[in-house]
């Protein structure tokens, strides 16, 4: 993938990711999150992970974001009223986040492999759905079934949580 496209999609992803945090209106945040995930999915495809890129769009930009927008609509949330910001907490939170990024930056800087480019693929065809599915049903068969149980438990939990009045 050409560096121009990489930086373009990375820029789109980061700008709209920041917009999620900065926006005051929850609906604007949710829609920025969709654009951010589209950029992320393009980055996945630039890494030849087409299957992951597609399910990123389907699951996140499709299902999860519809769920978010549905809840925002259900709760009838409007733009937040401005409250007094706790300045110490704000500056402290920003400092911790910046410290985390500096840490990540220095670790990546020390990593020798980080300066190398990606090796070209040596295979004639890319059937990554086939390969991911094969691994999923052979090596990772037990985790796959456990994930199925987890999703079932989550479904039951959501029904119970939203049905009964919590006292």
């Amino acid at each position: 993938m050409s560096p121009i496209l990489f930086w373009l999609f990375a820029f789109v992803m980061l700008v709209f990711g920041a917009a999620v945090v900065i926006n005051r209106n929850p609906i604007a945040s949710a829609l920025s999150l969709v654009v951010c995930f589209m950029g992320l999915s393009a980055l996945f495809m630039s890494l030849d992970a087409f299957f992951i890129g597609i399910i990123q769009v389907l699951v996140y930009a499709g299902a999860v974001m519809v769920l978010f927008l549905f809840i925002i609509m259900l709760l009838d949330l409007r733009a937040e009223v401005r409250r007094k910001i706790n300045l110490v907490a704000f500056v402290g939170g920003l400092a911790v986040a910046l410290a985390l990024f500096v840490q990540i930056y220095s670790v990546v800087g020390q990593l020798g492999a980080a300066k190398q480019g990606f090796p070209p693929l040596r295979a004639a065809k890319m059937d990554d759905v086939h390969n991911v599915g094969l691994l999923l049903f052979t090596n990772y068969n037990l985790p796959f079934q456990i994930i199925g149980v987890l999703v079932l438990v989550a479904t039951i939990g959501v029904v119970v949580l939203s049905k009964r009045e919590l006292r």
Partner: protein
Amino acid sequence: MVTLGQYLIVSGLLFTIGFAGVLLRRNIIIIFMSLELMLNAANLSLVAFSRFRLGANGLPNYNAQVFVFFIITVAAAEVAVGLAIIVALYRARQTTHVEDVNSLKF
């Protein structure tokens, strides 16, 4: 040439944005969206490593992509449960502001 380090830095930036969102915002739905940003930043670095270290057949290392698949599934389940909890909270307290919910007692 795009290097592995550039993907890792972009992923770290996305993680930092999500982390800052969790720390700075007070609206519980925005905090939840920031959590999703952090999960996806981890996914990006996993996929970058998967493409970087090719398997014996010259294809990407698909173990990492299976891991990403699992993360996406767990994240979807987590969103469903979390949003149900937010709806229950809103019914009980009529607020989504975390500073209005500061006691464990219902």
